[in-house]
């Protein structure tokens, strides 16, 4: 592996990311899957980076999940996206930032479509007027929230309490970065670093002290694939995709997996459980799994936020071994307490995948 080769490619995919004044739209599913992530993003933007991030409760799904599941037509999706833009315009913002990769992909796809087919844009504007009476400006800048964290990764590193160093060995942690398919596979120029060797997460890992693992199935989908998971009969395919990735990365002994998509961490995390139950296989050391983090969670960890405030307790694969490696303190007793201090209940231990026992 020649890192200078990668750097020269990364240079070619420099993406413009707005500096401030973001209109932020949330993901449909992330607040369930990884409830601390979006909250942490807002917290970092406000407390650490002191940026203006605007949120409006009336924004809806972009309908990407329906679009990619073949239940929402493109025309409908475009009109819904047009409405989001209208809300942004009405709020006086022009930098559109999404929490979700599929949304990001859909916005990119729609803007690209409108660019090549202005008549379609006109038609959609008309649909929106007909339906809501709203008009809109297209965003001046479209970024995924991970682009924004990437942009300020050095600031986060500077203000951080921890680095991705194994405190026992002093060596950098080995990190698998997994990019959501819809981030740059459709439009390589829209992603930091392009589609082949995306830099958006790799840049964070580098600057926060870790080493990126380049493993053969790096490009492969996590297995979500919408139809593959949403229809139960197809789930074996979804699972096979994840397994292919785990089999491929396991020889590199990754300390954790970093992701930037709603679906990927969900499946890379939960399927480790399913695989262990179905086949008895685990991919981490000593029967443990490989922890899977969102980039917001990781940024929060670097900044020294309490792991349980980041929502790490809802992960299937326990993150405590990773916290121990980095040296982040945590209170095991508080793991399953709600925000107001009540016991939220504790999951049953899986048959194979080890629960972390803190000594």
């Amino acid at each position, binding site marked *: 592996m020649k890192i200078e080769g990668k750097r020269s490619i990364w240079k070619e995919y420099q993406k413009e990311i707005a500096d401030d004044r973001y209109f932020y739209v949330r993901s449909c599913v992330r607040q369930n899957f990884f409830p601390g992530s979006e909250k942490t993003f807002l917290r970092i933007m406000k407390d650490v980076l002191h940026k203006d991030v605007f949120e409006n409760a009336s924004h809806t799904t972009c309908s990407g999940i329906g679009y990619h599941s073949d239940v929402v037509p493109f025309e409908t999706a475009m009109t819904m996206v047009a409405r989001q833009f209208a809300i942004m315009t009405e709020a006086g913002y022009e930098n559109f930032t999404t929490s979700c990769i599929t949304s990001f992909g859909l916005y990119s796809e729609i803007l690209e479509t409108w660019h090549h087919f202005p008549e379609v844009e006109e038609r959609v504007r008309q649909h929106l007027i007909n339906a809501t009476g709203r008009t809109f400006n297209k965003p001046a800048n479209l970024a995924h929230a991970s682009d924004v964290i990437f942009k300020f990764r050095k600031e986060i590193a500077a203000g951080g309490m921890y680095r991705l160093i194994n405190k026992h060995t002093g060596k950098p942690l080995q990190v698998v970065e997994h990019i959501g398919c819809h981030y740059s596979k459709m439009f390589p120029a829209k992603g930091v670093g392009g589609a082949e060797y995306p830099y958006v997460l790799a840049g964070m890992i580098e600057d926060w002290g870790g080493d990126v693992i380049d493993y053969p199935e790096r490009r492969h989908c996590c297995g979500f694939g919408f139809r593959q998971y949403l229809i139960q009969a197809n*789930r074996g*395919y979804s699972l096979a995709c994840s397994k292919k990735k785990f089999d491929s990365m396991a020889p590199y002994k990754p300390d954790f997996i970093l992701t930037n998509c709603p679906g990927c961490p969900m499946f890379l995390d939960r399927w480790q459980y399913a695989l262990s139950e179905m086949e008895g296989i685990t991919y981490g050391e000593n029967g443990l799994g490989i922890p899977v983090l969102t980039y917001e969670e990781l940024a929060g960890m670097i900044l020294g936020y309490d792991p349980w405030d980041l929502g790490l307790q809802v992960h299937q694969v326990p993150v405590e071994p990773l916290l121990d490696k980095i040296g982040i303190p945590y209170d095991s007793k508080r793991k399953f307490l709600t925000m107001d201090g009540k016991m939220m209940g504790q999951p049953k231990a899986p048959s194979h995948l080890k629960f972390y026992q803190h000594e």
Partner: protein
Amino acid sequence: MVKNFGYKILSDASIDFDRNDKRIADYLKAHEPSMNLCIGCGSCTATCSAGHFVDFNIRRIHTFIRRGETNQVKRDILKCMFCGKCQLVCPRGVNLRNVILTINRAIEQTG
């Protein structure tokens, strides 16, 4: 104790050349090297007497053999009538009847 979630892990559909069992391919290579002359034109399959009546693609069969994909092939090859038309039309001079005979022998020897 295996949990049933209502679905199974699908096996990989791709040809895994590294892991595949290439004993038959090696045997074929040693005993009928003309096999390597194939350019995939499909003449053999197009003229095949057996292929006229049943799904039997001799071109694909020997290509699979060379890739080490042998499970289905072991059953398929039994459909060959051995008439030799394939060999007569092959533009590359592949000695196809001996290819099939050799595959048969290799299957017998490798089990």
